[in-house]
């Protein structure tokens, strides 16, 4: 706009308008437009805060446009990486072979113990009538393109709304948990990686059972946020973090990260899934489906569990009367 000033000056300027006044007017106009521009951007940001869903459709549509481009550009990168990996494999074959053989001997013994335990667990679960939610695969696709900006750690998935993918769904790679879906287009979607600073995954330490949160930092490592634990156990380098299933989004017992630094506070962990080498991944439905309430009358009191105390106020909906509850008035528990 400003660079047109001399041009506009040549075309019929009214007699009284001086160049000085023109400049002042232009400056005022420019300031006004700049203010509007900045205000518009800030308004968008506030909208994004109030309703984070708002930008998803736009970003999803853009993904549909750029994902073919990404796929084409990814091909040579992948090929080059495959060649490098193969050369590296050849160079270290002997040592790796020895290490793997030792590992297999140890794993065989562990597998035998695990099989026995598995049978035991299945028998006990049958006795308890425990209902375990099943993991449901929604779509399998290929993840590529780490969009490495300063504040976002994301990858593009080759599956989208047409394959049933929806925001929030967990994404699982062969090595472990990769992240969750954020934006969905028709044929492509974007996932937030574990290392994104907004990523929080409920995890537990496989060996100790401690629960906590694996928090992304934007860097290559995760922070294991957990409450101080009583008892003599201590976290060790090499401890595996797996999903705990808390929150109902991620299925439990999917490998997430391995502890690399226990001296730091909170401890640091490295994800099993390397963002640089994502490949085929599975998009699963959120592990626990949201409860869908249906009208069912509350359960009646159990006849054989203590006295139902006839003068109690109303039918206690918490029918799981524990022995301790018989001592306290029914009304005090609500």
């Amino acid at each position: 706009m400003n660079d047109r000033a001399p041009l506009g000056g040549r075309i019929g300027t009214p007699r009284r308008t001086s160049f000085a006044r023109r400049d002042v007017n232009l400056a005022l106009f420019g300031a006004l437009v700049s203010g509007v521009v900045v205000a518009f951007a800030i308004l968008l940001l506030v909208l994004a805060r109030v309703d984070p869903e708002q930008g998803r459709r736009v970003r999803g549509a853009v993904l549909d446009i750029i994902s073919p481009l990404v796929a084409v550009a990814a091909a040579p990168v992948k090929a080059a990486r495959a060649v490098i990996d193969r050369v590296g494999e050849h160079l270290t074959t002997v040592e790796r072979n020895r290490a793997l053989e030792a590992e297999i001997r140890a794993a065989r013994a562990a597998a035998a113990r695990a099989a026995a335990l598995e049978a035991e667990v299945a028998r006990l679960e049958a006795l308890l009538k425990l209902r375990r939610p099943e993991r449901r695969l929604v779509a399998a696709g290929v993840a590529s393109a780490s969009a490495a900006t300063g504040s976002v750690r994301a990858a593009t998935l080759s599956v989208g709304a047409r394959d049933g993918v929806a925001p929030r769904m967990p994404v699982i790679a062969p090595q472990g948990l990769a992240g969750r879906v954020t934006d969905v287009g028709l044929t492509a979607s974007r996932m937030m990686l574990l290392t994104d600073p907004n990523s929080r995954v409920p995890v537990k330490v496989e060996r100790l059972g401690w629960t906590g949160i694996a928090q992304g930092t934007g860097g290559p490592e995760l922070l294991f946020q957990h409450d101080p634990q009583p008892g003599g156990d201590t976290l060790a380098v090499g401890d595996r973090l797996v999903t705990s299933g808390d929150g109902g989004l991620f299925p439990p017992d999917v490998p997430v990260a391995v502890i690399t630094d226990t001296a730091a506070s909170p401890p640091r962990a490295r994800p099993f899934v390397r963002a640089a080498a994502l490949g085929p991944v599975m998009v699963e439905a959120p592990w626990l489906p949201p409860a869908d309430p249906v009208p069912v009358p509350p359960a009646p009191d159990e006849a054989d569990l203590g006295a139902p105390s006839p003068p109690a106020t109303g039918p206690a909906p918490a029918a799981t009367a524990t022995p301790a509850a018989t001592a306290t008035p029914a009304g005090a528990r609500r």
Partner: protein
Amino acid sequence: MAGLSRRPVARQALAVVPAATLVGGALLSALPLPLGAGALPNLPLLLLIAWAAVVPRLLPPWVLVPVGLVQDAVAGLPLGVMALVLPVVRLAIAAGEDRMTMRGFPEGWAAAAALVMLGAAVEALALLLAGRALAPASLLLQAALTILLYPAVLGFVAGLIRRLTDG
């Protein structure tokens, strides 16, 4: 129309090409590179600074809003982050333009560094405003890479302008 010399064509091109390079830079950042934890330079921001260094008064702030929105959508940022950063940096350039005439390359680089840091600060504020968590280390890493890449992008922009104007 056919009788026009090359100069008006270049003039029209200069109205479109800078914005197009910024969009191209945003798309380039979305390409898959085996950089799991690293950061890529903020190419659109750097291109804006380089264009302003070579030809002042290109890319008015309101053109930068749609460009910034494209970058937000491509990078998966909350819509409005780069749409705020780019115009604010452009306004800062306009404010400092009159004082920074006849500057040499080192001064230009220093000014570019200051502008990149301003951009990173505005980006951090915008992310906080949008309710996102921050990763200050990677923002700084990205800013550092962006500053280091300034000479190359400046050369690219200068070469582009030479081609456009010489025909």
